[in-house]
Structures are given as C-alpha cells and as structure tokens.
C-alpha cells in the first residue's frame, strides 16, 4: 500500500517538475509505438479487407495463420528480430540493432496480425451487408476494398487502438532489440523493468501510472476525434 501511494506521489512529482528524462522517455515511447501502429495499420487494414472481399486459394489458411500469429510471444518476436538484425544476421549491415527502428520493427511484427484480424472481422461483417449492392453496381475489387475500409473506419480505428495498446505496453521484445539504452532506446516499459530490477518501486510505479494515463489519453483523444468528425449517430 505504501508503495502504491509513494508511486502516485512520484508520478505526480515527475510530471510536475517537468523531469527532462521522463519527457524524453514518454516521447520516445509515443514515437516508437505511433510509428509502429501507423505502419502496421497500413499493412493490416488492406490485408483485412482483401481477406474479406477476395476468394483466393490460401484464404482460409491465411486467416488461420493470422489468428495464430496474434498469439506470438513478444519475446520470441524480439529474439527473431534480434537474430535478423545482429551483425552476423542477414540485415546486420544496416546497423539497426539497439536503435528505435529495431523496436519499431519488432512492434510491427507483434501487432500487425492483431490489427489485421480485428479489421478482417469488421470488414467481413460490413461486406455481408454491402455485397449485393456493390456487385450490382459493378464495382472493381479495388473499389470494394476502398469503400469497405472507409465505411468501416470506426471499427478499424478501434482495431488500430488495440494494436496501440498492445505495443505501448510491450516490454519483452523491445528490451531485446532495443537494449534499454539511456537516451537512445529507453522507453516507459523498459524503464519500469529497470527500476523494478533496481528495487526502486515507487519510481517504477510512478512510470507505470504515467504509462496507463498515456494509453487512456490516446484512446480518448482518438475516439473524441472520430466522434466529432460527424455529429450524427454512427
């Protein structure tokens, strides 16, 4: 109980004192995760639409694979990316290991299946109601996908936010590929892990509260934006 209380005070103090290290870490967390969510969504949303609209040979298998990949342990993803990016790995020459870029890559791999899977379900449901109309209007496959993505955008935002929630709170993979280097790859989750390891529970808790507040604030902001986009009811 003492620790919780201490943690709240610590969090308040860190924020109120404009602690430079804290703001740096928060910004890096946001930068890494937002970049990962944008890139993952750019892959996952069209993929979800394509899986809903097109009948191709390995469609069922692809959907099963996506669902399976959703459950990938992040630590294993981290290890996998580490091996690919390490000096002796196939992408070693790029020198990306222990950079924010490596963390972004790991997060993209972790959340793309999640976003694609939720997007696929939402778009499949909408496609069921649009199917006859869009076929009747002689739409191309491309037009159907674009229409469905646009008209399902509310559900798709939720899908992307689910990806954001998973990525911003993830620690295992980015610890491995980022290395938690101060002023370079340290983010909220890895800082929490570090402080916990050092036994500074109140600081760790303080960072934890900030992480939760950040996740909630981003969710609320996005929902507020998408609600005001049109004053009507859908």
């Amino acid at each position, binding site marked *: 109980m003492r620790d919780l209380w201490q943690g709240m005070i610590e969090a308040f103090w860190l924020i109120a004192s404009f602690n430079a290290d804290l703001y740096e870490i928060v910004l890096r967390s946001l930068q890494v995760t937002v970049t990962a969510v944008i890139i993952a969504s750019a892959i996952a949303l069209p993929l979800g639409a394509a899986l809903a609209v097109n009948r191709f040979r390995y469609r069922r298998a692809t959907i099963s694979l996506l669902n399976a990949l959703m459950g990938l342990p992040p630590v294993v993803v981290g290890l996998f990316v580490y091996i690919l990016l390490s000096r002796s790995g196939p992408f070693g020459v790029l020198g990306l290991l222990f950079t924010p870029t490596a963390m972004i890559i790991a997060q993209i791999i972790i959340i793309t299946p999640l976003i694609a899977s939720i997007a696929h379900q939402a778009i499949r449901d909408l496609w069921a109601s649009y199917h006859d109309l869009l076929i*009747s209007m002689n739409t191309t496959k491309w037009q159907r996908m674009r229409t469905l993505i646009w008209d399902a955008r509310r559900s798709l935002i939720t899908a992307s936010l689910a990806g954001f929630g998973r990525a911003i709170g993830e620690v295992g993979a980015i610890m491995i590929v980022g290395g938690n280097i101060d002023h370079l790859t340290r983010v909220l989750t890895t800082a929490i892990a570090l402080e916990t390891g050092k036994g500074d529970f109140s600081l760790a808790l303080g960072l934890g509260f900030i992480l939760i507040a950040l996740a909630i604030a981003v969710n609320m902001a996005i929902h507020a934006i998408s609600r005001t986009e*049109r004053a009507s009811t859908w």
Partner: protein
Amino acid sequence: MVASILPLTLTDATVRKGGKTIIGPMSETIGPSGFTIFMGPNGSGKTTLLRLMHGLEHPRGGSVTWQLPAAQARMKQAFVFQTPVMMRRTVVENIAYPLRVRGEAKNWAYAEAARWADIIGLGNALEQNAEVLSGGEKQKLAVARALIVQPEVLFLDEPTANLDGKATREIEGILLAAQADGVRILMATHHLGQARRLASDIIFLYQGQVHERAAAEEFFNTPRTPESKSFLSGDIVE
C-alpha cells in the same frame, strides 16, 4: 443512338439451390419497352429470377443473354432490393456513390445527388447519416441511387413491401416518371393494387416457372390458370 442491351433472352435458364430447382428451366424474352411486373406467391421465385437476370445469381444450366457482353450490360442496369442497403454514409454520399464508382467528378456527382435528393424529398437531409432514415426514406434513397446512373433497365424486388401508403405512392410516382423517361422497369410485387396501377404486362410465376404471361389488362380480366385465378381473387396460393 447508344446500343441497347435489350432484348434480354433466357434460354433454358435454371437456378438450383440446396439440391432443388428454384427457377426454370425457363426460356423467355424481355422486350425493349414496358413496365413488367412479376407476380406470384411467396417462394415462387420472383427474387431469384430478378437476381438471375441482373447477374447476382448464376444459372446452373442454360443462359441469360443481353445484347451486350455481361459486364457492359450490367453498367446499364440498376437493382433496388426489398430491404434497402444503406451505406454508412450521408444521404448525398449514398446517392452519389454509383456515379463516383463510374469515375464521375465529385462536384458533378454531388450536384446530381442533391438534385435527386430534392426529387425524393430529402433535399434538406443531404448531410444526414442515411442509416437513421425511416424505412420509406431509405427505399426512396435506394430508388434515387439506382436511377442516378440513368439505367436502361431498372430491377425492383418488392420495393414497397415494408412501406406505408404514403411512401408507396411516392415511389410509384417516381417509377412512373422514370418509365416516361424511357427506363425499362422489371419489378416484383405481390400487391395486386400496385400491379394494377403500374403494370403494362404481367409475368405470373409459380413454382419457379412462368405460369402465365400476358398484357396487364388481359391478365387481370381473364386469368387463364387456376392458380392465377385464385391468386387474383385473394385466395391463398401455395
């Protein structure tokens, strides 16, 4: 003169579903003019036949042929479903959608859509979410969205089945105006009154077959089969 897609020819066209024959084998010709109404009891195949003609169902046997290749012919048809499909968009976006699909400029498409919204009495609701319209407004929107592409052939599947008298009358007015503009209308209904008001000729379906086909007056005055007789006298026909 733009090439016509009519007449439409069905040759031994057959639709099977769930192991049973739902339509046909049917051989019929749909000529270039008129307001044809498809009647028949529930389950007689009206919906399936219209969908087959429009290309939403594929014949198991036989053929459905327009005077142009199927893809080109589809561009000159529009279909209004029994339950209108509202896209998650505003009224004006819904009506303009088929023009946008055809690559028309946004400004022009929206101006056309606004003109149609006026015609169907939704001129003041352009920016409203179409999903919250009343049933009658939704179906009028669906009719406007079908007519905005100036189709040569318009299919309607019991468009007023779920509507009240006022909305029904308004839709009938729009359809008669479209017919006067030269649109070839093929419509299913089981409202006798509606068929009398609108039809130039009747195709009476029974168990997936064309049971009787006649000019409207002839059909209503002198039905030739026991089924159409009892259908017209309001008996239950199964």
